């Protein structure tokens, strides 16, 4: 799907190395600067600049009416965002942590996702819901969940998650420019990872990105699992196996075209996601790939995911989180020629 990114970039373009946190901050600042309808709000996003400092300096630079703190109530934040969107604004709201977006769930599902449909397009919802998500930072209970499945399952929501500073910038700009609601999931673990960012580069919502070329097997990952997949690919390469890595990046809608072509070309696939695997984005990807690539598959598509348990406490999270080894194990199981079961097939 191509969604035209029709922003006229007026601020001078920047090219440079920055953290994902800085890239998101920059995207917010550029959007506020360019479009008077963009407002950023949530808990602690003003003077503090957010608990992760993602909105650092925005209130100071653009004033209290462009970036401001709300009372501590997530349904309130989401519900007022709906009203603002009805009245011509483009709210970008921050949910402080993934589990703390849950009080807003009714507003998201019953209104944010449905208002455009309800009104036959008369009232669209250009809202961006930013949610820091996932683990890997040693956070305590309720601070490390991955709840993308809840949003991706909900018709009407676009759900994206970046794995690089460049995508963080470009996808957030596209999300803010979108006429429809976008859930923008920020991998906390990658906030301080660095990369090159060119602010003139655009990205289309609804598209996957090929993160590494490869010919033997396709690993489909998103967000904080993309570096894990790339690490696995690197190790596999040293063992003589060529691993293609696709950064799914758009969790809804899904870029079937890119993914199907990729898996058909390699004939093998592994899906990697951090969230509990049951009824998840990973299961969806696995099912789709299976169905669309059935005739081309040399082996069953595997998934590597978090366990179907509540997220682990900090001291145990290294056992919970999928790592390169777990990905490599899954790859190893894909009926290779030197593999009896595979050969029998």
């Amino acid at each position, binding site marked *: 799907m191509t*969604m035209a990114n029709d922003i006229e970039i007026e601020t001078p373009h920047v090219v440079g190395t920055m953290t994902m946190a800085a890239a998101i901050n920059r995207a917010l600042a550029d959007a506020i600067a360019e479009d008077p309808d963009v407002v950023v709000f949530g808990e602690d996003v003003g003077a503090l600049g957010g608990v992760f400092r993602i909105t650092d300096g925005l209130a100071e630079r653009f004033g209290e009416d462009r970036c401001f703190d709300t009372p501590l109530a997530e349904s*309130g934040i989401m*519900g*007022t965002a709906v009203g*603002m969107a009805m009245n*011509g604004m483009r709210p970008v709201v921050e949910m402080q942590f993934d589990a703390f977006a849950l009080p807003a769930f009714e507003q998201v599902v019953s*209104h944010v996702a449905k208002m455009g449909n309800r*009104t036959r397009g008369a009232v669209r919802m250009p809202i961006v819901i930013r949610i820091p998500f996932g683990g890997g930072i040693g956070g305590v209970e309720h601070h490390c969940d991955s709840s993308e499945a809840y949003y991706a399952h909900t018709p009407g929501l676009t759900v994206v998650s970046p794995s690089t500073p460049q995508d963080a910038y470009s996808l957030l700009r596209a999300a803010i420019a979108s006429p429809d609601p976008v859930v923008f999931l920020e991998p906390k673990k990658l906030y301080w990872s660095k990369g090159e960012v060119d602010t003139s580069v655009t990205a289309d919502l609804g598209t996957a990105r090929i993160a590494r070329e490869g010919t033997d097997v396709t690993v489909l990952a998103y967000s904080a699992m993309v570096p894990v997949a790339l690490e696995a690919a690197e190790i596999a390469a040293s063992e003589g196996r060529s691993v293609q890595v696709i950064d799914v990046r758009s969790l809804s809608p899904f870029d079937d075209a890119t993914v199907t072509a990729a898996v058909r070309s390699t004939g093998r696939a592994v899906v990697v996601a951090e969230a509990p695997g049951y009824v998840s984005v990973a299961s969806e990807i696995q099912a789709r790939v299976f169905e669309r690539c059935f005739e081309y598959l040399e082996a069953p598509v595997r998934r590597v995911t978090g366990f179907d348990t509540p997220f682990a406490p900090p001291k145990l999270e290294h056992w919970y989180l999928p790592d390169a080894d777990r990905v490599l194990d899954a790859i190893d199981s894909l009926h290779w020629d030197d593999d009896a079961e595979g050969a029998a097939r």
Partner: protein
Amino acid sequence: MQHEDLLPRDTPVALIDKDGATVSDEQYALPDAETLQRAYRGLVEGRRINDQAYALVRQGRLAVYPSSHGQEACQVAASMVLGDHDWLFPTYRDSVAVISRGVRPADAMVLLKGDWHSGYDPAEHRVAPQSTPLATQLLHAVGFAQAAKHRGEDTVVLALCGDGSTSEGDFHEALNFAAVFHVPVVFFVQNNEFAISVPLSRQTAAPSLAHKAIGYGMPGQRVDGNDVAALLAVLGEAVDRARSGGGPSLVEAHTYRMQAHTNADDDTRYRDRDEVKAWADRDPLSRMQVFLRAQGLLDDIAQQTIADGAETIAAALRDALNADSDLDPEDLFRFVTAERSPQLEEQWQLLRGEIERASLTDAGGHR
């Protein structure tokens, strides 16, 4: 404003009693004659719409109708106190208020007929889609007002909800956001004594719902919800305050749901007929009729003209709803997002194939 001024009165504000006699009030003046005449017409039309819709449900032309029979004074006042550029945020029970704002009756009934989820463009008459998830719309109203304030517009927003809805967390968050951001919203609670079957005593132990206002730092007031004059005065004051930068307020109207929750409900299971009868004595229409007649503001001819007007509305509603809907299944895919994703297009093609095959075989069944 002093803290005590945020508290409502111990008894609801009333200007015309149930027998049509005026009640004098130090704070609130009786609206002028022309306003009251207009209000009366609104009441008659509102009642007619309620009764017509009820009949259409019985005839199977509407799927469901949550009637505001008995609450027409609230409905009419909510609409009349707003200026043209102000906005109304109604619930499923507020069809009469929606229609009073100018929305075509048939468009207001699209949801209840089952054709689509809403049948009017909100911007056209400054009426948000009628909200089903309780109390959620109150937050939308606040955000809407925040945006207006942000742009320096003097829009006032009036948001409706029922007594039961005051128990929802969103009610609390909406009033609190409105007060903290000091935005021009009037929260108007129609306390009709019931939330489906649950009586007010199971919703709150507070002296009144309007006593909640002080907890947000906004004024609360109580008003006789079957007295359109008092409603116009109290809501009018609240709207004026909001428009002049005085911030939000909470108005609780004491009224009664005369019919079952909807046609699907059976109110004999949970309330006495005597209670319903007692409230019939406090009907919002009859007291106004008595009052206007006594004041020489309504004669037989005017009465007939109003009745005829209401009949015309009812007839149009009947006609519109008796016509079969012409629906396009592709609409299911048209409005989900501004641009249709390949994923949805693929699904539409699947359905399109089914529809085509169905039209080849017989009308209706697929295979």
